């Protein structure tokens, strides 16, 4: 019997493969992690409900489309605030306190600027920067062309460049 989304072990592996990128995706859109997790769970409920109608290779884009629709219906219109963890500096860094302070300031300003990007650009930018996804992968998830992803990425970088420049 060929694999279908309705088989529990198949479904479980889809969940475990995509849960994190889906919850991150929803966080980038909403800036609200608990809400992002709820919507992610709801998206999987929908997939389970529709499992007989959604083929295995469509399940990924189905999840992202449903998640996006739910986001539009429920969470949009809130002001977005985003914060990211920063990997710690190397133990032997000889960076001056002055430098570290400037860097922290830069991080704040960058986070603000990212939150202020149009939602489409912000999501694409962060999926690439944080989740380390290739443009092709993002395009598949969002059901867009690679060119569209590149445009969003270019425009995001163009906007964020200004922050760097004005510091």
């Amino acid at each position, binding site marked *: 019997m060929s694999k279908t989304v309705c088989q529990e072990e198949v479904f479980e592996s889809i969940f475990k493969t995509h849960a994190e990128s889906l919850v991150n995706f929803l*966080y980038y859109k909403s800036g609200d992690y608990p809400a992002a997790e709820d919507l992610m769970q709801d998206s999987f409920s929908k997939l389970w409900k529709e499992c007989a109608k959604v083929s295995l290779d469509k399940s990924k884009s189905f999840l992202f489309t449903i998640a996006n629709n739910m986001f539009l219906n429920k969470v949009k219109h809130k002001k977005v605030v985003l914060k990211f963890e920063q990997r710690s500096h190397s133990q032997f860094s000889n960076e001056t306190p002055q430098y570290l302070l400037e860097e922290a300031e830069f991080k704040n300003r960058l986070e603000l600027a990212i939150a202020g990007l149009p939602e489409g650009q912000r999501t694409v930018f962060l999926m690439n920067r*944080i989740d380390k996804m*290739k443009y092709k992968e993002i395009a598949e998830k969002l059901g867009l062309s690679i060119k569209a992803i590149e445009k969003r990425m270019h425009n995001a970088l163009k906007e964020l*460049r200004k922050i760097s420049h004005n510091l």
Partner: protein
Amino acid sequence: MEDKDVLYAKWLNGEISDDKLESLVGAEALVDLKRVVSATDKWSMPKYDASAGYNKFKKNKTVKESKVKQINWYKVSGIAASFLILFFFGTRFLTDSTQVIYAGNGQNENKTLADGSEIWLNDGSTIEFDSEDWKANRTIELSGEAQFEVTKGSPFIVNTPNGSIQVLGTQFNVRAWGPNLYVECYEGKVQVTSNNRKTILTEGEAVNVVQGTMTEKEKITHDAPLWKNSISRFHNELLTDVFEELERQYDVEIKSTILKRSFSGNFRHDNLEDALQSICKPLGLNFLIKEDQKIVEIE
């Protein structure tokens, strides 16, 4: 250069070298961009515990489904009950016939149903219905916008987050973006219910629900929704909603401080400048399209 609008993206992806980028946009830009990239390189999101998440998912599922079965099985012993619930969980896909259709961005979807009724879905919209029981129970959940051509038969009902529409055999369009609901009737009769208010539309009539309040019926002269002719029409709707539609249709970002006013009128989907004219002129607003065509400022 042909890739001008994706230049930075290509560079970030390693398809364009530092030297090449520098020669195109200057050393300063390269330094700025590198700073953004190296800062965000160090950022991360908390690791999501997918196993715990999956257990939570299964638990929610089982709770929901056991509720449905409760009346039948509450007397059965614990082991038997959980076995039955799992069995139910594992096989429900065989009987579940809910169908979801969604039109991705830039796509319109067309669906003919078992009874011959037809639905056209606008960009980014979703419908949901029970395909097996369709002839007896013609109920559709809609988010977004769609046109319906309904054949005679049992009551045809469209539920939206802001109200429901019951068809009495007809052609109509429902627009349910954000907090608003707008229904146009082209043929036959439809009944619109929202917040305990009911109205019946006949051919050539439309009704608007803005922020929960149903307005008086209006006359329309067209016999198909304007979005099918690449036009968006508004009836006394908030500018925020008008701007959202513009953003969807043109993939631009609107920056404006004037949001509380309302707008009645149309805009076309084929020329951004014309569209902006038709919104701004009547309201006495000015707009500026930024050179990259992606940002529009309105004041």
